[in-house]
């Protein structure tokens, strides 16, 4: 009997359960636990013990009593809806022009059209003031030449414009993807039945890409209602929920009230998800199959030129803030004067005096978090694809939650979770790494899931039957084959973490300021030059990472964003 048990134990493979179990434990400790704790705490008043008897709606009552809370709620709604609307107005025509007309420079548009997704929007946000503000260059020019002034950009308009210019690529890229993979025969058959060009677009082409547009709109909405940096810099008295949360955390240290606002923010996101699912499920669509036939391209010369001008305009306008950042970083004391007059490296010299620590911090935190996210994300996607879990959707949802939730909400959850209780991390760099890695793990999870599902299970079985234990197979076969997916996810994760702001502002401590925190501080203290020099360094770091990854992986940047 004992021998039989021993035999059994010997023949049982523990390693996969050990390794994969560890990944699942990390998932529970760092995502499930803080998120459930923040939900619970939002129903507990500050100072009360977190017990079932102390549950209350008091934290939410401010939404009916305080005008600040109410206006923040409505402002957030307005920002979200306006950004979706304007992103569609920009992204859909742009996708059509690039996919369906003879517009030249398609690769150029696709690559530069992806950039706003990687470049942190708050870095460029102040440029809008510099350009279009009351004292801005454009207004000065308009006033002296035409005696005309633009409406004030501070507040809602600035916030909406700045966010839209960083979110329209979601609509653009997703719609573009759907347009080029739609079966061209469907359009041709509409035409053969006598439909006019416009009618084909309206009744066939557009409905076929609606699911892609809805998916894009959902991401735009989630991004814009969760954006902290832009309203913090451009909002002024225009409060939105993320800035209100920040206010509660840093102003009153009231984490429970912040948790309640975060819940409201989450409810907005959840409502958007439900609405988008309702919209796509109510109508039935022809499955878009990719045929070998290339997408049909309009031969109209007019559309070609309209398209080119439109695309150039959008690209120029959306990258203008970042170009301004780079340009301004080489000037001395612009912002005070009408036009820049003196060019120098003074700002950079100053940065190397005062901001080496934030640069080092950002590099360290982003690298550490990316490595952890890569390891855990890869293991979790292995479980997701290879192990026949019945509750696979729970795993998928848990991993994706920090991606769906606003960054500042994740920040609050991590702070609530690890500033009391068994594991206290607040004030350390570790709490920032936790926040960073759970927020970026979805990127790795998605891209490795995609590359793993393309690997034939038989390839791994072939290794096993040859005599390789699980770990050997995983190391020598599975991992190398997943490597491109891991690298793609890791690069995007690293690049976007370098400029991460909304989780950082909740979790950072004096010793662990990052580039993004430093930039915001400089902007608030009106030291624009150094802020922009640091911004330029950030932009260069991000672009270098993406460029290197493109070189190694040999794919275009727009393709790397397929999973986002």
């Amino acid at each position, binding site marked *: 009997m004992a021998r039989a048990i021993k035999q*059994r134990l010997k*023949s*049982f*493979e523990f390693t996969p359960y050990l390794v994969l179990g560890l990944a699942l434990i990390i998932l529970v400790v760092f995502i499930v636990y803080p998120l459930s704790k923040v939900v619970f705490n939002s129903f507990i008043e500050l100072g009360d013990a977190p017990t079932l008897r102390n549950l209350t709606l008091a934290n939410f009552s401010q939404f009916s009593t305080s005008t600040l809370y109410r206006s923040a709620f409505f402002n957030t709604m307005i920002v979200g809806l306006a950004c979706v609307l304007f992103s569609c107005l920009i992204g859909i025509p742009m996708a059509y022009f690039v996919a369906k007309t003879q517009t030249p420079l398609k690769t150029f548009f696709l690559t530069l059209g992806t950039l706003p997704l990687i470049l942190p929007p708050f870095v460029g946000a102040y440029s809008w003031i510099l350009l279009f503000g009351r004292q801005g260059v454009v207004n000065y020019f308009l006033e002296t030449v035409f005696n005309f002034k633009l409406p004030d950009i501070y507040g809602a308009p600035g916030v909406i414009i700045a966010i839209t210019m960083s979110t329209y690529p979601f609509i653009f890229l997703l719609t573009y993807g759907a347009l080029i993979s739609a079966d061209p025969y469907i359009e041709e058959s509409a035409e053969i039945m006598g439909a006019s060009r416009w009618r084909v677009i309206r009744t066939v082409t557009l409905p076929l890409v609606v699911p892609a547009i809805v998916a894009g709109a959902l991401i735009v909405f989630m991004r814009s209602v969760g954006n902290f940096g832009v309203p913090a810099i451009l909002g002024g008295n225009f409060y939105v929920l993320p800035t209100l949360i920040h206010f509660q955390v840093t102003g009153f240290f009231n984490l429970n009230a912040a948790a309640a606002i975060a819940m409201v923010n989450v409810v907005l996101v959840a409502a958007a998800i439900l609405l988008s699912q309702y919209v796509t499920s109510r109508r039935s669509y022809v499955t878009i199959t990719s045929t070998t036939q290339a997408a049909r391209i309009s031969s109209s010369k007019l559309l070609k030129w309209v398209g080119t001008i439109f695309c150039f305009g959008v690209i120029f306008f959306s990258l203008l803030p970042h170009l301004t950042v780079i340009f301004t970083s080489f000037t001395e004391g612009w912002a005070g004067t009408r036009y820049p007059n003196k060019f120098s490296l003074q700002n950079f010299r100053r940065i190397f005096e005062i901001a080496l620590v934030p640069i080092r911090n950002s590099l360290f935190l982003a690298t550490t978090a990316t490595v952890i996210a890569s390891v855990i994300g890869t293991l979790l996607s292995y479980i997701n694809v290879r192990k026949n879990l*019945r509750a696979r959707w729970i795993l998928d949802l848990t991993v994706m939650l920090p991606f769906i939730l606003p960054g500042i909400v994740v920040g609050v959850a991590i702070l609530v979770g690890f500033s009391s209780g068994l594991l206290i991390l607040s004030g350390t760099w570790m709490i920032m790494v936790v926040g960073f890695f759970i927020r970026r793990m979805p990127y790795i999870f998605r891209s490795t899931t995609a590359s793993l599902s393309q690997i*034939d299970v*038989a*390839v791994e*079985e*072939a*290794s*096993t*039957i*040859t*005599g*390789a*234990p699980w770990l*050997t197979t995983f190391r*020598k*076969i599975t991992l*190398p*084959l997943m490597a491109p997916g891991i690298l793609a996810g890791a690069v995007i994760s690293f690049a976007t973490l370098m400029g991460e702001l909304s989780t950082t502002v909740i979790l950072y401590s004096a010793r662990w300021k990052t580039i993004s925190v430093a930039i915001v501080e400089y902007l608030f203290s009106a030291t624009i030059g150094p802020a922009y020099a640091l911004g330029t360094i950030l932009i260069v770091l991000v672009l270098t990472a993406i460029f290197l990854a493109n070189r190694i992986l040999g794919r275009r940047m727009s393709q790397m964003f397929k999973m986002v």
Partner: protein
Amino acid sequence: MTEHDNSWITLSIRNLSKIFRSKHDQVQALDDVSLDIREGELFTLLGPSGCGKTTTLRCIAGFEKPSSGTIDFLGRDFTSLPPFRRNIGMVFQSYALFPHLSIFENVAYGLRIRKLSRREIEDRVNRIIALVGLEATQKRKPSELSGGQQQRIALARALVYDPQLLLLDEPLSNLDAKLRVYMREEIRRIQQQAKVTTIYVTHDQEEALSISDRIAVMHAGKVSQVGSPDEIYENPNTIRVADFIGQANFFACEVQQDAVPVVTFRSGERITLTNSSGSISSFQDREGILFVRPEQMEISADPDYPNSLRGEVKVILYLGSVVRYYIEIFQNHDPQEILADQDRRVQGVVVGDAVAVLVHGQEAKLFPTEQRQQLDKA
């Protein structure tokens, strides 16, 4: 070597069952399968898709855990041994070559895991790659090889570490027809040279007949018959096996047992079967289903030829090695189409002609009427 000689048996499968459970239902993939595989033979699991042949193979490999039953290999209990401890070689339907490794590294993989010296690895890989005839490809990646070449590398990879058992899962199904015939001869040659006990899974009965020492015909998770290719083809034990292997004609009839059996067809026609096999003379029932292979049917241009069935030629197909005649006969007013393969064209017979069909008794066989339901086309 007789059926009951145990000394030759290496792999012994006893009462193997496998039930796949999903959320709502369960599928019995294997139902009490018992098989004995002999040392050095090429044993084929043959059957239509879903018959359980691949599940059996995957249980032997260890990728599936049987719900009940045991697998014994040379006295060692395989049933709960993890696959990587079984020392098995396997060739997958998709070949499953490691796409990121060179051909050399693909083949060397199992040797590296066994921690052999560099010299020996090189030696063995070179020898096995020579055996499959692909010396020039070592530095290439799998994607640069043709399907047939990938197939051979997969075989080399599975054989290089001298496995005790070789498993082949539909290895030829991704090749085109001509290459398939060539490769099955290659597999046979290499298997004979390596002298390795081999289990081969296929749904292609022609492949199975040509390559195997013995065949197990499977259906719905059960083993229908085990035997040499000749036995399976000439002496199928059920209508289903007879129908699945090769072409077959079936006739509902009555049998009178005298010195020689006399078969009465539904049409009323009577035939005396000369040289009939034992199964007919020992047949107890009066009613049954007569099974005759097309090549056992002879056509005569004279419709009134004695001791024959009357029919009308519907289609003549020239197949190269044989000429196949589709002939319509009448069984109780219901038309039935039968096949008759002739070595060459029957002079003077064209489509629409009335002919006589002679039935050669020595390979004819009678099945009980109840087995009729096993026929898909009945």
